[in-house]
């Protein structure tokens, strides 16, 4: 029943995908030091779906940025699949972001002049992948999030939920081992949020390790594991033995393709 124990029992896999030890991050504003993380210890095992919770300013985003190799810690260790990230060169870090990690943002962060398909292809353009294969993969990723028919729409022609699904497809397209999502439902209504959670749960079921940030208990309820942050520290790490199934809630609601109001930005 307990997934972590299953992994640990399964000898050769008994190694965390993310291992963080005494992670410290300080921001410097002029002469004042803003301690955003004050020593975080956390292990995330392959196949987990983890919700990071906590009040605003507790350091969740800072932590996610460190996990996503977008930033370097002030002190402490971060091992991704056993690799000490702090020893990687800038180019190797770029490759980790490209190949091993998918990042989903609260505000989608799509390039507005590109179609959904081109946005999803973007990470693949930073590998030497032939255009044809790039396109095929991007189409597969869009199919995975139920947006195959919107491939040639621009972000402004899509609803918020659809934009976030495009962003998820972009994060998935390189087949990463870890998906990081910082408040992926923060800009979406509750109905659409459930749909996004449904997609994330489905991906997790297929083996993708996901860490997501949310300050809403409803969203965290879809995750098996909930980690609480406060003042830059982990103050709670609980397992939810019966997470909600977004899939079941959606069956008697809308269809994926027709939801939400249009968001213009």
């Amino acid at each position: 029943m307990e997934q972590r124990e299953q992994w640990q029992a399964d000898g050769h896999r008994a190694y965390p995908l993310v291992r963080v030890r005494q992670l410290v991050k300080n921001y410097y504003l002029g002469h004042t030091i803003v301690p955003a993380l004050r020593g975080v210890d956390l292990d995330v095992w392959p196949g987990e779906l983890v919700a990071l919770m906590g009040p605003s300013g507790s350091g969740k985003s800072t932590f996610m940025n460190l996990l996503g190799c977008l930033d370097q810690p002030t002190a402490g260790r971060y091992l991704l699949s056993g690799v000490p990230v702090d020893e990687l060169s800038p180019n190797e870090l770029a490759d980790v972001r490209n190949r091993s990690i998918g990042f989903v943002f609260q505000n989608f962060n799509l390039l507005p002049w590109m179609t959904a398909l081109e946005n999803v292809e973007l990470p693949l353009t930073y590998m030497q992948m032939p255009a044809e294969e790039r396109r095929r993969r991007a189409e597969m990723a869009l199919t995975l999030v139920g947006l195959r028919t919107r491939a040639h729409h621009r972000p402004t022609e899509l609803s918020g939920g659809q934009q976030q699904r495009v962003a998820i497809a972009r994060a998935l397209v390189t087949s990463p081992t870890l998906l990081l999502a910082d408040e992926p439902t923060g800009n979406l209504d509750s109905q659409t949020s459930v749909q996004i959670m449904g997609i994330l749960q489905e991906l997790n079921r297929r083996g993708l390790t996901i860490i997501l940030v949310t300050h809403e208990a409803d969203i965290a309820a879809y995750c098996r594991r909930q980690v609480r942050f406060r003042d830059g520290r982990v103050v709670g790490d609980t397992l939810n033995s019966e997470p909600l199934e977004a899939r079941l809630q959606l069956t008697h609601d809308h269809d994926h393709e027709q939801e939400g109001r249009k968001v213009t930005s």
Partner: protein
Amino acid sequence: MSFLRPETGASQHATLPQPAPLERSAFLPPVHAYRRARGFSAVYQGTRSALRALRANALRSLLTSLGIIIGVGAVIMMISISEGNAAAINQRLSALNPTQLTIFPGSARGTGGVSSGLGSAQSLTLDDANAIAQLSHVTAVSPLINAQGQLVAGDQNWSTSVVGVAPPYQQIGGWQLQDGSFISQDDEDSGHTVAVLGQTVVDNLFGPGADPVGQSVRINGVPFTVIGVLAPKGTTGGRNADDVVYVPYTTARQRLSGGRSLGQIVLTADSTSNVGLVQNEVEQLLEQRHNIANPQLDDFQISNQLQVLQSVQGTNQALTILLVSVASVSLVVGGIGIMNIMLVSVTERTREIGIRIAIGARPRDVMTQFLIEALVLSILGGLIGIVLGPVGAWVLTHFTTTPFVLDPLSVLLAFGVSALVGVVFGFYPAQRAARLDPIVALRTE
């Protein structure tokens, strides 16, 4: 890349088992090990996305390129005009006899230039001319008087320059006769009122194709008999060589100019290499004849056509350098314009850069993207300039007499410089983009 290399030197984790190989998730097929986009493929992709970004901002891109367009256009135009000028001068040079020397009366001192010949000095005499004719390497000598004449034949009249010369002048000026004959020694000695007309004069007084030999024409009221018509030389360097009348030198002095001095003496040396030698000989001879000990006090000046034209060519070259440097400054200004807009572009697109870095662009990928964009801007500007420059030069040739000359090398040069400008001035903004902190970049609105 060495993503899977084992952990090193982490003593606190020494008891942990070796990391498992990366477990790819089952939702998409695994990505095979591709190398990073490099070389041609990266440039091709970069160019495509650069064109796209520039098209999205078409007006701004055009305005940005304007500096390069003007710069490249101006450089090509200036080179074209200068070369047209040089060609015109060369044409003039070839129209003149390079072995010709002209002796002007008057000294070089005073106002600094050569004093105007006719009437202003009495220094040159016919005897001088005869003495010069005895010198070695001199093939022909003729005195020369210039006058403005009003010609009347029947009810037609024409104003042109009437030149009094001796018979050897036919050889000096390189004239062929179309009809009749040139001034003879007898005409010269007796001061006959005879005239040899240029083609343009004939056309205007007697009509095209007429043969006026034997007819009468009044020059400044004095009746002259036409004894010959010169074969046309055509227009050389903007001057119509055929708009001229030659009369015997003695006749011109007595009937047309009234003065007793001889205007100039023109002579030819037997070869271009002897021009200098003849010039020295003539100088010594005249100093001796005029009893001048100090060459500084010479009462005559010898002008060497070759030298004059060479100095004009030199001036033209200096002018070319000046014009091209001014045009080059506009290229540099154009480059600074590109740098300016690229910096604005990097600032405006900070978020885009953040996104690209977040999904795995290497610093060099970002750098390449913006460098290519600057390069595309400058090369597009350069191409437009390459079209506009020659067009401008061609239009200008219609307002001047210089011919249209286009040197392919100048086009190539201007294009190369515009590309160079793109790289040089695009470098700093591109570097700024590549060094952006993704966290900061993603937070900007």
